[in-house]
């Protein structure tokens, strides 16, 4: 058993009361240095995305052919692209798109999974069978392919891309939620709540779901990272978010033609995707250890 858990087991009830549950979670989380760095990076990225118009002196869309294809320098720390636009500004602006679209997508798939997973896990029977067979079908189509198909059918744009991202995500979240609910639904306290005459919705919302929250939060964080990667893949292939809206994937696609001579046009947006994915993965791992020490691998 990890140290943190042993320690909190020895704490007196009063101590727990004084600090609250959240304090111990935060303490466990802070012990994981990588996760703290990841969280800091994500916060900086969000701030950069929100305030990108004020942070750099350049405009993300304004073309300046006199300064085209510059290598990184003091004035343009990540260099400029083929239209003379500052790559750093465009990466920050692209973060807005990536973060927003992946958040929308993951929120949509979580909402769908909450409904489907609750029905499947709590009620079982025919509904469970039907939902889970449908999820089997969804899961057998590789994620990016399904996103590509949906994205091609719906067309481009942020909301449509978010929907394309959300559909493959539903299956995994539903499966996970269903298995956590199934483990919980026969517990004594659920039985007690039923004996008190609580309605199904009440029991699900107040007793079952709060106890399934930790794995869900972890999966949510990890999904944010993987959907940023998937969005960039879609945009790279010319689906998803289209230029002139900067998105990391379409920046890489645009820079691809200049790979020989100006590789910085590919490397920096690519590294941005990598760092974002890495940060969300590390944050997810850190949250897993902090929220539920028993799940620690």
């Amino acid at each position, binding site marked *: 058993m990890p140290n943190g858990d042993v320690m909190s087991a020895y704490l007196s009830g009063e101590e727990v009361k004084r600090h609250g549950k959240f304090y111990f979670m935060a303490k466990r989380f802070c012990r994981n240095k990588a996760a703290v760095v990841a969280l800091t990076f994500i916060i900086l990225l969000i701030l950069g995305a929100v305030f990108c118009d004020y942070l750099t002196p350049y405009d993300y869309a304004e073309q300046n052919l006199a300064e085209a294809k510059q290598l990184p320098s003091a004035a343009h720390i990540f260099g400029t692209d083929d239209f003379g636009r500052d790559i750093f500004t465009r990466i920050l602006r692209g973060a807005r798109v990536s973060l927003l679209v992946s958040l929308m997508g993951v929120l949509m798939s979580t909402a769908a999974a909450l409904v489907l997973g609750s029905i499947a896990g709590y009620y079982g029977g025919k509904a469970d069978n039907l939902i889970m067979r449908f999820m089997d*079908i969804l899961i057998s189509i590789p994620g990016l*392919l399904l996103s590509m*198909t949906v994205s*091609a059918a719906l*067309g481009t744009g942020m909301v449509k891309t978010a929907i394309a991202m959300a559909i493959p995500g539903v299956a995994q979240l539903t499966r996970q939620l269903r298995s956590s609910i199934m483990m919980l639904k026969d517990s004594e306290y659920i039985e007690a709540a039923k004996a008190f005459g609580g309605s199904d919705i009440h029991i699900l919302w107040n007793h079952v779901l709060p106890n399934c929250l930790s794995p869900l939060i972890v999966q949510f964080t990890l999904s944010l990272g993987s959907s940023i990667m998937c969005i960039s893949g879609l945009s790279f292939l010319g689906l998803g978010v289209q230029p002139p809206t900067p998105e990391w994937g379409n920046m890489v696609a645009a820079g691809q033609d200049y790979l020989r001579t100006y*590789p910085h046009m*590919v490397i920096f947006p*690519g590294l941005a995707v990598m760092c974002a994915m890495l940060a969300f993965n590390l944050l997810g791992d850190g949250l897993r250890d902090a929220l539920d020490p028993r799940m620690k*691998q």
Partner: protein
Amino acid sequence: MIKYVIKRILMMIPVLIGVVIIVFTINYFSEVSPAVILAGANATAEDIAAKNAELGLDRPYLVQIGSYFYNLIFHGSMGTSYIYKQPVISMIATRMPYTLTIGIIAAAFSAVVGIVLGILGAVKQNSIFDYISTTLSIICAALPPFLVCLGLMLVFSVHLKWLPIQGINGWKSYILPIIATGLSPIAMTARMTRSSILEVIRQDYIRAARAKGVPEGVVVWKHTLKNALIPILTVVGMNFGLSMTGSVICETIFNIPGLGLLMASSISQRDFITTQGCVLVCAFIVCVMNLLTDLCYALVDPRIKAQYKNTGKSIKKRSIQKGGAAA
């Protein structure tokens, strides 16, 4: 055992039918009709309607999907590509070898390297080697596929000029795509192997084996690895399915005429019938890989084999995983 295999194969059929229905429905409600693209930029409404009629896209939903299934089942045909005017099935058949070669070699290579790295990491836990390999595998798992492909191309083709940049031209052309496809599976396999072995190596029977003087190599390879293999097999099987996805980006960048490139181009040209065929083939491969993974469980673990024999029932992967980990 054979009963179990037949049952699993039969269970694949509804899944594949579902895949066709889902992809067909998504394409049916597409914003841009293939006819609009085929008819060109200056087409009138009549031109588009004529194209639609020619492609059979003006028929009702049920008729279209019904005829797709009819042709698939009774004629083994997946329709004719809207753009290339060739049977989809033969287009897929000519492209499949490239994708499968890359996928299979990359899967085998990533399994071997990943398992070896994972074992070394677990055996020498908390050493500098463990630290480096864990860090590398975390980074590799976060690498976007296009960055890997372009990075490899930049280093080995553009600067060092060791390997060809694009296209398929002899065995050398396969090296970069295989590495690019295999990199993130290596990371995942190594991570899973490490944690799975660490779980097993703490067990009492490992201590017993060491106590009776079994050499460390035999302890690791025979006693530990065999018991830790179930979750590793799951990851290896999953990775092969993922390489199908990876092939879309990898083949687009390296310009390899495989299934991935066909899929990418058919999606962007709204050649929906080709897309549908490609997705169906991919889903089929994923299903077959899942079945093979489950059969490998039986090879590795006699308890699972007994379960398959006794009940013939499908056993959820999860419970097998847990059973394997608890062993």
